[in-house]
């Protein structure tokens, strides 16, 4: 016994030694850069040999206020994130609920549910480009096949269809982790609750609204919040699908900030947009989660 205690105490001297190799690079190459990035949003830093790091305080934000393209991009970003998150949730919940039923082919559904997750974002975009392709894409060819005259409609380049088309891809891409999280949530609901309600004569719909829905609330809040953050900040998918086009119709904020920073070299201005994005995400999450809490009370 005495020896055990000594050995455990001995170990306590060394944790720092164990942790340093991991801690140093993470702090040097991601924690500090993030702090610097936030600070850059208050400077006029530009890409070039000399980076001016003198603060210009709120100049960037004043300029952002009068930048119509920026406002438009945020509007697109919010519509994109809200719609995509909503679709992901509805589709994910439907699939998760079906997986709780006694049906055949669930093993296949379980495997297929992972496909969007297992596909790299760039390949997701390529797959859907092949679907939306105007001449030989699956969508146009199928529509022609059933006699709908679509012509050579280029879904991703048309002003009316580009944004909805991108949202569908976003919903597809995020369905997997939503389904996985909701299945785990449904498994956590005690079976006794359903049995008791059923013996009281509750219908399936009543059991859903009175048991499943409220019991699933914490998981719903978690996955909806995370999906919303990921969607709002997402970049690769839209970049490869449309590059923000046509005419800025799909210019989500992450893409807008990237262009500002790396196409035009306005580092400070781009970082300022990043800061605004953080504030918007936190504000919307706050509203969503508060509303949720009031709903329970």
């Amino acid at each position, binding site marked *: 016994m005495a*020896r055990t205690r000594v050995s455990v105490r001995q170990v306590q001297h060394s944790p720092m030694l164990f942790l340093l190799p991991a801690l140093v690079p993470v702090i040097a190459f*991601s924690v500090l850069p*993030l702090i610097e990035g936030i600070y850059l949003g208050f400077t006029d830093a530009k890409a070039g040999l000399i980076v001016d790091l003198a603060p210009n305080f709120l100049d960037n934000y004043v300029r952002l206020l009068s930048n119509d393209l920026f406002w438009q991009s945020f509007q697109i970003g919010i519509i994109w994130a809200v719609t995509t998150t909503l679709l992901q949730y509805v589709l994910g919940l439907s699939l998760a609920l079906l997986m709780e039923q006694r049906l055949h082919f669930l093993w296949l559904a379980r495997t297929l549910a992972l496909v969007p997750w297992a596909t790299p974002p760039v390949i997701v*975009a390529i*797959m859907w480009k092949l679907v939306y392709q105007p001449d030989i894409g699956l969508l146009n060819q*199928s529509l022609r096949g059933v006699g709908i005259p679509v012509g050579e409609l280029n879904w991703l380049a048309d002003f009316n269809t580009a944004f909805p088309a991108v949202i569908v891809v976003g919903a597809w891409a995020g369905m997997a982790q939503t389904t996985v999280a909701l299945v785990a949530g449904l498994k956590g609901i005690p079976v006794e609750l359903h049995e008791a309600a059923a013996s009281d004569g509750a219908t399936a719909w009543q059991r859903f609204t009175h048991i499943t829905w409220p019991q699933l609330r914490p998981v719903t809040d978690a996955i909806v919040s995370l999906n919303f953050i990921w969607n709002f*900040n997402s970049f690769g998918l839209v970049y490869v699908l449309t590059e923000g086009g046509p005419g800025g119709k799909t210019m989500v904020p992450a893409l807008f900030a990237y262009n500002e920073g790396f196409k035009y070299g306005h580092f400070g201005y781009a970082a300022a947009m990043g800061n605004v994005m953080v504030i918007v995400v936190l504000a919307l999450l706050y509203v969503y989660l508060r509303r949720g809490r009031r709903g329970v009370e």
Partner: protein
Amino acid sequence: MIHRRSPAATVFQYTALFALMFFLAFPLLWMLSTSFKGPRELVALIPSLIPVNPTIDNYFTAFREQDLVRSATNSLQLSLGSAILTVLVALPAAYGLARHASVLRRFTMSWILVSQIFPLILIIIPLFLILKTLHLLDSLSGLLVVYLVWSLPFTLWMLQSYVKAIPIELEEAASIDGAGRLRILRSIVLPLLAPGLVVAALFAFISAWNEFFFALVVLQSAELYTLPLTLARFIGSEGVVRLGPLAAASFIATLPSLVFFSFIQRHLRSGLLTGGVKG
């Protein structure tokens, strides 16, 4: 207790299930189908999901494409490097985290959560400047550093939960028997940790293999491009005839993570990996 479903409900449930399964599967199937179609079938007026005259020419063409082969080699080097480096650095830290440092454990967890909220633009600009100062811009080593720090927190978190699952009594018993610190780590902790190390290494490999944004910013010369960069450029510029080889290359590029996901499928049920893999 359990209600019998009405036939209408059963029909409805199966319809919904098949519709969702179709939605999930068809983009991948269409890409697969495209990859086995010859040029003439590719432009056929009536599409077929199963190619009439399947050909593997597209795969040969993809393998003869120098850009693709070179970027696949780059991706492979980078992903292997990232997997090895991440695990080497994370292993001791995960041990220290699991056994002792509660403050740092909280720091790691908060960092994983906090880093999700911030858009990548805030990190990439300073990182770009740092890499430039270190002359690591436009180099695979520079990107490797980025991938290391990016997959480290999550790998650490994963590994430390594996360490925690090893009863400390085993180590204490070995210590009573007179085994030294290193001996305990080597002969007791390491063997028991092997499955965790494999999952962590695969995770780091796949994160690097699939990553797009950092590569886009850090790499400028086409010879250094990773597979996602080259494929993204390909689809932007090439005509219809080249879609066959592109689909073939894309399918090959997806294989590692498809294999990885089927491998870790059972871990996913607990939501263990939620978040980390998304780019």
